[in-house]
């Protein structure tokens, strides 16, 4: 393996993280939190030092192949999480390094699970960093890296594909850098739009920005204890519902709509299914909530169902209601949604609707092959044939994802929480969702877990964010010793 070449790219990526840490520093300075300013400055300097050392050790020479690419992407996420944890420690928000790492990884991977028991006591700067790291991780730090550095060369394409491995990661432009730029421009435009709407709905710039960051990245961190419910405003909730829905759809669809005017979103199979799941699950939950007399007010029931369903489906994890107190059917439905996730090419986590589509179609094909073994059946999605290699990769993904989740739940149950807590904590971290049910429900937090449990969940978050494969490769002996 060409370690020096990988180190070179990692070093540059880390410098990007160092630069990112200057943004919350500005925020702290604005609110005159001078201790936090110093903490961010020191953190940024440490990150910059690591970056420079890596670049010094590394050299952009020789050919970088797949192994090096995997190391850059997986290592990049690990390093970003570790270096991003330093501000939590230095500002005194989270003194335990494991807690800080959990919070930081939960931020970058847009999970949104928190170990902070009370949130509002912390400084505005550090809470801004929490949301901002989600925004960076939402579109992907490697995608940003590719967009910002023109001289990455053909290797950029491979890096990009490792971070955006969804089954429909088609390029929008001939050059991958242009694709990354287009995606970031869409992301920025949506960010500006949501911030504007939230401010019009009465939020101040700080609340509007931080909530926009964690909506569009489908992260779910809120600088408020009560999350979005804190505002008590149905308008704010509706705005956030709409933007969560947009963030959970494939971003390349927006590019197409923009490019080919009048292009119909509903022509896309995945988008159609995504919308149907959203509508169907909301209808069932509303019906269940009203029938079980959990809610009296119909409008409130609909709004809370809409909000909770899209929040879980897109793996955001915002809450406006304590859905852990909902009847069993609604809770079960939400647990099922833990495993769906948004569309491929969105900022959402979990397994992705596209994989569901391909997985279901290939399973149905197997059923048909039982009674007509000689028929040649091809899988089509939105009129395009899905290559067998993709079908294979989806099947492998299902197995790895579910077995990792099960092993994670098994390990967490060792510590003694109830089955629901262990199972949903594992699902909520590998799916980058955030809150689960039971002791990790929407009004609870992850602080009570032991250090080993937290370390495991950090790993689950990384695995989930890179959609297993790139991160899992690091655990194979044959990866290190060809």
């Amino acid at each position: 393996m060409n370690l020096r070449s990988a180190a070179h790219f990692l070093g540059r990526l880390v410098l990007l993280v160092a630069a990112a840490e200057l943004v919350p520093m500005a925020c702290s300075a604005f609110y005159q939190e001078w201790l936090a300013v110093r903490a961010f400055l020191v953190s940024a300097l440490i990150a910059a030092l690591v970056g420079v050392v890596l670049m010094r050790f590394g050299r952009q020479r020789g050919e970088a192949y797949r192994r090096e690419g995997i190391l850059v992407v997986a290592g990049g996420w690990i390093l970003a999480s570790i270096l991003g944890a330093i501000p939590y420690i230095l500002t005194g928000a989270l003194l335990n390094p494991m807690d800080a790492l959990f919070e930081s990884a939960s931020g970058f991977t847009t999970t949104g699970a928190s170990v902070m028991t009370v949130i509002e006591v912390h400084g505005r700067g550090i809470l801004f960093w929490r949301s901002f790291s989600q925004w960076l991780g939402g579109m992907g730090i490697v995608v940003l890296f590719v967009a910002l550095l023109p001289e990455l060369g053909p290797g950029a394409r491979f890096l990009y594909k490792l971070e955006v491995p969804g089954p429909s990661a088609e390029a929008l432009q001939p050059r991958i850098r242009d694709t990354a730029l287009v995606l970031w421009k869409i992301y920025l435009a949506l960010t500006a739009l949501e911030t504007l709407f939230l401010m019009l709905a009465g939020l101040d710039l700080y609340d509007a920005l931080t909530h926009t960051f964690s909506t569009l990245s489908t992260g779910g961190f809120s600088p408020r204890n009560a999350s979005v419910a804190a505002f008590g405003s149905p308008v704010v909730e509706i705005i956030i519902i709409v933007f969560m829905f947009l963030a959970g759809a494939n971003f390349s669809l927006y590019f197409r709509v923009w490019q080919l005017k009048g292009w119909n979103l509903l022509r896309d199979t995945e988008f159609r299914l995504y919308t149907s799941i959203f509508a169907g699950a909301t209808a069932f939950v509303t019906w269940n909530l009203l029938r079980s007399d959990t809610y009296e007010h119909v409008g409130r029931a609909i709004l809370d169902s809409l909000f909770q369903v899209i929040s879980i489906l897109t793996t955001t994890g915002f809450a406006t209601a304590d859905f852990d107190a909902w009847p069993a059917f609604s809770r079960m439905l939400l647990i099922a949604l833990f495993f769906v996730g948004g569309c491929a090419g969105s900022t959402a986590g979990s397994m992705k609707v596209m994989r569901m589509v391909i997985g279901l179609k290939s399973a149905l094909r197997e059923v048909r092959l039982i009674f007509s073994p000689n028929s040649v059946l091809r899988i089509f999605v939105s009129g395009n044939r899905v290559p067998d290699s993709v079908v294979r990769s989806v099947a492998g993904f299902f197995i790895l994802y579910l077995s990792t989740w099960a092993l994670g739940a098994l390990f967490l149950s060792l510590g003694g929480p109830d089955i629901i807590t262990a199972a949903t904590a594992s699902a909520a971290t590998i799916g980058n969702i955030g809150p689960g049910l039971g002791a990790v429900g929407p009004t609870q937090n992850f602080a009570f877990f032991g250090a080993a449990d937290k370390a495991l969940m950090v790993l689950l978050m990384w695995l989930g964010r890179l959609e297993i494969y790139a991160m899992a490769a690091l655990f194979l002996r044959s990866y290190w010793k060809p």
Partner: protein
Amino acid sequence: MPVLDDATMNTAHTGPQKYVVMGAGEVGFHLARTLSLEGHLVTVIEINPLKQERIDEELDVFTVGGNGAHPAVLKAAGADSCELFMAVSSSDEANFTAAAVAKHMGAARTVVRVGVAQEVIADRRLYEALFGVDLLLSTELLTTTRILNSIRGHNTVAVEYLAEGKVQLRKIHLHEDSPLIKHRLRDLTLPKDSLVVALYRGDELIIPSGDDIALPGDDALILGTRDVVGQAERLLSLGRERIGSVVIAGCGSTGRTVADALERLKVKVKIIEKDRPRAKKLASTYPDFEVVHGDATDLQLLKAERVAGAQTFVALTGEDEGNLMACLLAQELDVPQVLALVQRAESSKLWERLGLLDVFSPRALAYEKIREYIENDYSANIVSLQRGAALVLERRLAAASPAAGVSLAEMNPPRGLIVGAVVRGERVFVPRGSDRLEVDDLVILFVREEEVDTVRLLFPGRDRT
């Protein structure tokens, strides 16, 4: 005086350009690779899913799977708005069809590569007009040119074919007693339809006028129609630069093109051909050549046929392995010049280590030619002399041209500009002072860098129509 049209100026390109490459073979892959590394927007069309995947993985380009001859595929690849469409797949027919459709859709220019296609090149204009091709390349013709240049042992332009090979350029070394050194150019009687177009003196390049005299040690660049250029060469070099005998191992289609050219040069040629019926046929096609039936990778045969006495050994069999083997044997026999044709030319360093200094690949030649075409702002058939100090241009005379209907004497071209040859329909001639240029003539011009603007004034329009 016509106003200069901006579009004809072909100004330097700014920013990334859109290119579409059809066929991800050797030529296509390397074109896509270099163009994308230069930051251009490249789309590759490839019919074979495995090759498409490879491109997708290794290059920063957009790939489209499918047959490039289909309009839907071309549309998906953005061929309708590309700067240059390059049809370089292995199928000649698909290349022509794709280029025609792409041109019709709106591609600015098209390049078509054909493989074994002497016939196509002979009727080049027809094909170009029919399929909207701006640059038609035959890998075979490129290979032949390359081989002849090597055989003649000149370093820059040795033989260059212009106007579909009807006109040739040759560079010759001038000895002390060459007539060109004794007489002024004006007083020298060269065969009709031949001309001295340039003199090389050290690093200097002179486009001579009638009063110039060459010095001993100069090289002269002469131009002539195919039939007389050899005659002119012999006159000026006093027959000193005779080419030694050549052995061609394996005489298929490329071999025959080379043999044809060598026959015109009156070179002694020995052909070794493995296939008996083909050997018989060759013997009757080239009565002056010695044709041997046998395997060129057989050392005993090579010894028995006294290959060691030849000046040049060229291996042109269909197999890379055979060619390399035969060349290594020829090398062993101390043949001074050994040329090997290899389809896969990627490991050129390896050949060097084997001692084979002159290994070339037809695909690499096609690739270079297309690169040159792009770098020269899409001017076909430009030969650059002495690193751009002078250019050879082909221009089609438009009706609006001030040169139309004017005799050369009346036009009085400036020093540094020579009208070398005129192609009028089937006729090719080197014009004299009294000859008039007509609309639709294809003129071959020799221009010093400084006079390129004059050419734009006198011969407006694109380099090719």
